[in-house]
């Protein structure tokens, strides 16, 4: 993007006003014609800018293009590190760890994450949790669920699992059996395949650069 948001905002308003004034020469600012022109001109200009920015955004959010991780990120360790210049946390990819004891090729990782996304939608997760901060407010935000220290601190000892992915798998198999806090997650009867896919999706999502949301994740415990 070659323009700052201020330039875009000023240009949008400037052109809306000037074009409206030019089209409405000879009409007072209290006349319906003036405001009809203002309505049409501002709607068209704003729509045009939205479409243009959508093209730019779509390009910047392609997986692997920087802000959104590549599918193979599930093979690596993911951390949040403080970026002093940006004054916020950014995801960082560390050493290779594998996922469920194996290294996934790009195609395999894509298929797995895709299945995970479908599983997330099919079980209506978003009507209790938030995904990237959007959804319902009954349960936790899942944006950084993969990175939550709770898995190591509480769930691994509880389930006896050796790795984080196995702990998530064991807990999600039957959440009401191991309630955390007052609220309970229902048993959504995931198959093993679905769970593996779902956890891959969550791991991939935890490496998205969200401009620092949720704030100060796991900094103050």
């Amino acid at each position: 993007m070659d323009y700052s948001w201020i330039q875009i905002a000023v240009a949008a308003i400037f052109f809306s006003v000037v074009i409206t004034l030019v089209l409405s020469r000879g009409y007072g600012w209290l006349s319906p014609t003036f405001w009809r022109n203002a309505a049409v001109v501002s709607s068209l200009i704003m729509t045009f800018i939205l479409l243009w920015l959508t093209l730019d955004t779509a390009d910047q959010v392609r997986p692997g293009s920087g802000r959104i991780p590549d599918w193979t990120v599930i093979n690596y360790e993911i951390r949040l590190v403080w970026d002093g210049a940006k004054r916020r946390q950014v995801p960082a990819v560390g050493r290779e760890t594998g996922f469920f004891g194996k290294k996934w090729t790009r195609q395999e990782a894509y298929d797995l994450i895709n299945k995970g996304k479908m599983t997330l939608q099919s079980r209506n997760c978003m009507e209790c949790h938030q995904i990237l901060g959007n959804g319902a407010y009954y349960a936790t935000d899942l944006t950084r669920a993969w990175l939550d220290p709770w898995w190591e601190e509480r769930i691994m000892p509880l389930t006896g699992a050796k790795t984080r992915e196995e702990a998530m798998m064991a807990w999600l198999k039957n959440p009401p059996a191991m309630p955390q806090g007052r609220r309970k997650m229902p048993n959504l009867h995931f198959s093993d395949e679905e769970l593996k896919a779902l956890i891959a999706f969550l791991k991939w999502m935890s490496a998205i650069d969200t401009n620092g949301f949720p704030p100060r994740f796991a900094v103050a415990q």
Partner: protein
Amino acid sequence: MAASLAGNKPQELFESQKLALAYFAVAIILFGAQLVFGLIAAYQYINPDFLLDKIPFMTNRTLHVNAMIVWLLVGLMGGVYWFLPLETGREVVGIRLAKFIWWVIVAGVSVVILVYLFVQVGPGNAFTLWFINEGREYIEAPRWADIAIVAWVAVFLYNVIATALAARRITGLLGVLIFDLVALGALYTAGMHYTVNVTMDQYLWWWVVHLWVEATWEVLVGVLMGWSLMYLLGTPRKLIETWLFLEVALVFGTGILGLGHHYFWIGTPEYWIGLGGFFSALEPLPLVAMVVHALYDAGAHRLNTVNRPAVFWAIAQAFGNFIGAGVWGFMQTLPQINMYSHGTQLAAAHGHLAFFGAYLGTVLTLIYIAVQNARRPMQIPLDSKYWSWAFALMILGIIGIAGSFTISGFAQTMIERAELGSTWSAFIRSYTHPWYANTLGWRFLFAWVFVAGYLVLVYDLLTIGKRKEGYAA
């Protein structure tokens, strides 16, 4: 011209107006369903074991918000079917097709509700997304239902355009309506796709959610309230249309790029933080204009009207829209605040006040106007002992519900986000904190006040205007 907008004498109902009455009846029934599932969800917050493995929270909440979207949309469309023949002076073109698709939609909505309630979830594959649940808040409707909805809006658009053409009459109001409905229908299709890229998924999801409620619905309401004020207060058309154009300029001028307030944290580029914050901070401007307009019109007539409940709901609509959408929205729209409040109960406080003020207020205004004309002899002015009770109880109820959400929202923002670092344990510590936990009971209590208001409303709608004295038809 036989028909006229001013509501001072009884007229024969057009077929399109009879269809509008069917729309309103279904809207009120779905409103009741919305409240039932809202109550269950609110109770599950208090007692998490309640119906945990029969109707879990996500199912109740899906039904609560989906019933709301559908009944409000049905109510707004009913308002168009009501006023269109009066505006064009003729029967709506394609009315048989309109009736046919309406009953298809009623059947379709029933099937979707039953599937939500009894099937609830499915395996993680495309079949589930097509036939059970799409799993995306507000637009869960399975894909087949999406297609039915698009067909429905297409017929509706055809009715409006063909009627305007047949009457050879394009007023400012009709022009805005057509322009807006095209956008409204087109935007819905932005939500009808699957992508694994969750950022792109949410990017387009907001085109439906935000660009509906903060742009196209807001303008649709501008048109319907314009007609309502002409009916209720006899406001001159030129005044109504000038204000409407001004509102459209401001709503679309700020709301389209205001969309950026949902693109701060979903993985989209940083320029959205500035753009979204700037334009969405201006979004309350048109809402202020609407309050000024409504108060000016009502004041100019010293509340002298043909229909008292409708005028009260119209004024409540203007204020509710401004407070719920404008003030509660502005409260959390600057990125510096939204970083901490995003995805907390504060959003739900705003959602309740805004939908109530902007859309419920409009639909009830429309329904009271229709009820007045559906009864013979027609009562002028329309009045009863009960409507003011429904009005007061519902407003008190929603203030209590949204107030509780606001307090739990602040507590959650401070404790979970600002203080404890947004993790699972931080979340548990925020919702078990008394400042949050205590609001749940208050919310439930006020919910019953709201439900009492709903019951009085239903009774009133069934009986108002049935007294003997009235305008001799």
